[in-house]
Structure formats: C-alpha cells, structure tokens
C-alpha cells in the first residue's frame, strides 16, 4: 500500500467536508477497498472512515412502510435485523462472503462499488429501492450505470437505502466457491402491482433487470412461466475461467426459476 492518512469524522457533514480535499476517498468496511489498496490499484492521499458515523448505521421501518437501512450498516446487522421485516433481503445479506466479511462490509460500500457480481445491487434493483445520499435521493433504476459505475458524484456518500417490501421474494445465488461471490444470482421480488427480476454476476454491464421474465411473472407467478421463456442472449454476458457467456445466460433462467419456486 502507498501511504495515506485516515480521518475519522463522526457526522455526515464532517465526512462530506473531509472528502472535498484533493485525493480523498471514503472508507466503509474496507472489504473491497483495502484489498484494492494492497494491490496498488488505488492511491488515495486520504481515507475518510465512515465507521464512526452513528447516524448512517442501523435498520428501521420508515413511516411509509419502507425498510430503511443506513449506508454504514454491516451485512451482519442487516442479516439479523431485517429478517423480521424483509426476509428475502436479510437472507441475501446472510449469504455475502463469510462471517468476518459480513461483520465489516457495509451496504453503502457494496452499492457504491457496484461490482458486476455483488449481491446487494440485485436486491436493491429488484426491490425498486431508493438510494439516499448526503445530497439527494436516487432511484435504483437510475443508480447502477454499468460495471463499477454508479450515479454517485465524487465525494457523495450513501447515507441510507429505502426498500419497498415485496409480498414475496427470494435471492437465488449460484456460489463461486473460491471468491464466495455469486457466479450468477437472481433476486425476484413480487409486489402487488408487478414482479421485478434483477440479475447479478452475468452481464458485462453489471446488474440488470430481465424484462421478459418480469412480464411473464407479473401475469403468472410460477416456475412454469419461467420454464416457458428462452434464456436471455449470451451476447454481452461475462465469460471467464469460471463460466462461458452461454453458461451464464443459462444460469440466469435456472436461478430465476429457483427464486420463484422458493419465494416467500
């Protein structure tokens, strides 16, 4: 790692001010950023640690019956505290990485990073959640802009994510056992006014909604409705040593079927 200093603000306001300085970067749980720093793929002059900011931590029900999760909340806390409100999302959090990763990694860090194989982008997009920052509110449909790219501006901090709670949901994750990330995973959320299906780990453009499956499942929420679809095109899917684009396209359909079968 190159050298840098660390600042530890205790309010969002102080963190935003600290991030204004040249070469400053936010540090959430560090479970993506620290490995990146070790391989010298990033060289910030200053890290602004968000872990001391209590106002962006925690899980609560909002007045509009959306589940509100602070941007600095760890995966372990979401797994434990969201379970009674939104079991599908709590389960997604409980499947991220391993216990030590879940004790440190945060939802804000995961969304800001937008890894094409990360779990939270799928749950967030399928829920039609709203990402709240220090400056504004961004709809999930506008937030994810391709691999490792989001609508966030420089120095903008995710302070909260607001999740509408579906009637039924499930996260079907095909594990890539070496990295513990999904090889491909699908989050299905059934709302009173329609079904949303979000896919991670498959497309070279990052998380996406599978429109054909959404249309089919909105009129018939059954595995048979998924079976009747053709898999999405392999063109533009990720191909690497773990799987070909064709394999991933096939997995999208299989995991969507599993998510529907298990939705509760």
């Amino acid at each position, binding site marked *: *790692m*190159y*050298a*840098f*200093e*660390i600042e*530890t603000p205790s309010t969002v306001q102080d963190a935003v001010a600290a991030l204004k300085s040249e070469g400053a970067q936010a540090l959430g749980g*560090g*479970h993506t950023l*620290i*490995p990146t*720093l*070790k391989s010298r793929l990033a060289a910030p002059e200053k*890290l602004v*640690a968000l*872990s001391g900011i209590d106002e962006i931590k925690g899980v609560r029900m909002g007045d509009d019956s959306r589940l509100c999760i602070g941007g600095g909340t760890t995966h*372990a806390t979401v797994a434990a505290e969201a379970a009674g409100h939104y079991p599908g999302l709590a389960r997604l959090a409980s499947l991220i*990485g*391993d*216990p*030590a*990763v879940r*004790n*440190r990694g945060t939802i804000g860090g995961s969304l800001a990073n937008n890894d094409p194989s990360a779990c939270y982008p799928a749950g967030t997009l399928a829920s039609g959640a709203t990402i709240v920052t220090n400056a504004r509110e961004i709809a999930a449909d506008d937030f994810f802009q391709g691999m490792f790219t989001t609508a966030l501006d420089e120095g903008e901090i995710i302070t909260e994510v607001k999740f509408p709670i579906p009637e039924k949901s499930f996260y079907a994750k095909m594990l890539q056992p*070496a*990295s*513990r990330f999904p090889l491909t995973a699908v989050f299905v959320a059934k709302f009173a006014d329609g079904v949303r299906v979000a896919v991670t780990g498959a497309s070279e453009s990052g998380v996406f909604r599978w429109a054909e499956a959404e249309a089919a499942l909105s009129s018939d929420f059954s595995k048979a409705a998924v079976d009747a679809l053709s898999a999405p095109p392999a063109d533009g899917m990720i191909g690497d040593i773990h799987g070909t684009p064709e394999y991933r396209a096939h997995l999208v359909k299989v995991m969507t079927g599993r998510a529907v079968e298990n939705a509760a």
Partner: protein
Amino acid sequence: MTKVSMTVNGKTVSGEVEGRTLLVEFLREGLGLTGTHVGCDTSQCGACVVHVNGEATKSCTTFASLCDGAEVTTIEGMANPDGSLGKIQQAFQDHHGLQCGFCTPGMVMSAAALLKDNPKPTEAEVRHYLDGNICRCTGYHNIVKAIMAASGQDVSIAAE
C-alpha cells in the same frame, strides 16, 4: 504516525502506527503476538481472524488506527489463565483438528465467535460458519468434529 491504544487479551497496549498499518501488523510486529497468521493477505483465507469488540474480524483487512479503544482478542488470549489449552484449543488437539497448524489460530477464533452466538450449532451450521477459513491440510472433517466436541455435543455422528 498516530498513537493508538487498545485492549489486547485483557491488557492495555499502545503504539505508533501509520494510516496504512494493518491490525495484523500491529499485533505481530508491534506487540510480538505472532500467533495470528497471514495466509493470503487478500482477505480470503481467514488465518488472520481475531475478535474486535467480540466480532470475528480479518486483521489483514482492518486498519490498526481504526481499532483505537477496541477490545481485541487473539489466539494468545484463548488459553486458560494457568497456560493450559482452552476448551476449543484442547478439542482441536483431541480430535486432530490440525496438521501443519497454519490455519488453526483463525479456525479457533472463528469457532469461538460461532459458539458465543450459537452454543450448540449443527454440523451444517459449523461448516457454513467456516466458509471464510481455508485449511490446506485436514480436509475439514476433524475441525468440524473438534468444534462439535467443544460445544459439548456428540461427535460420533459428526463428519463421518
């Protein structure tokens, strides 16, 4: 350099660290507590797991300065006060839960974190909890057995 103070295995310690100093470097090089191992340094293997404020934490993926004021427990803190092996350590010895021993400090610390929250885990729960602890020698069966034994459960059915 900034000054950092924390409680490690019940003792208050302090030292000077850089922003980039990792907790594992502070423990091993600053305090001489070399029981915590670095297996991968890429956040995957779990050999470096310690407890920070009671939570299993990869000390290779945590900055020392951010542990200011924290309670840290390492493998050196797992023995009984008289120096004999603690319950989980003894179970690893009794059930051959180690061969080269490189992964063992992390295994024991993860097992301790599991048993604190879930004193009587099922075999499946033990295996799931050890997702982030990699062992290149044992094939895991005897590690699972040791943890089942440390939780006071019948191990004859586990991992056969």
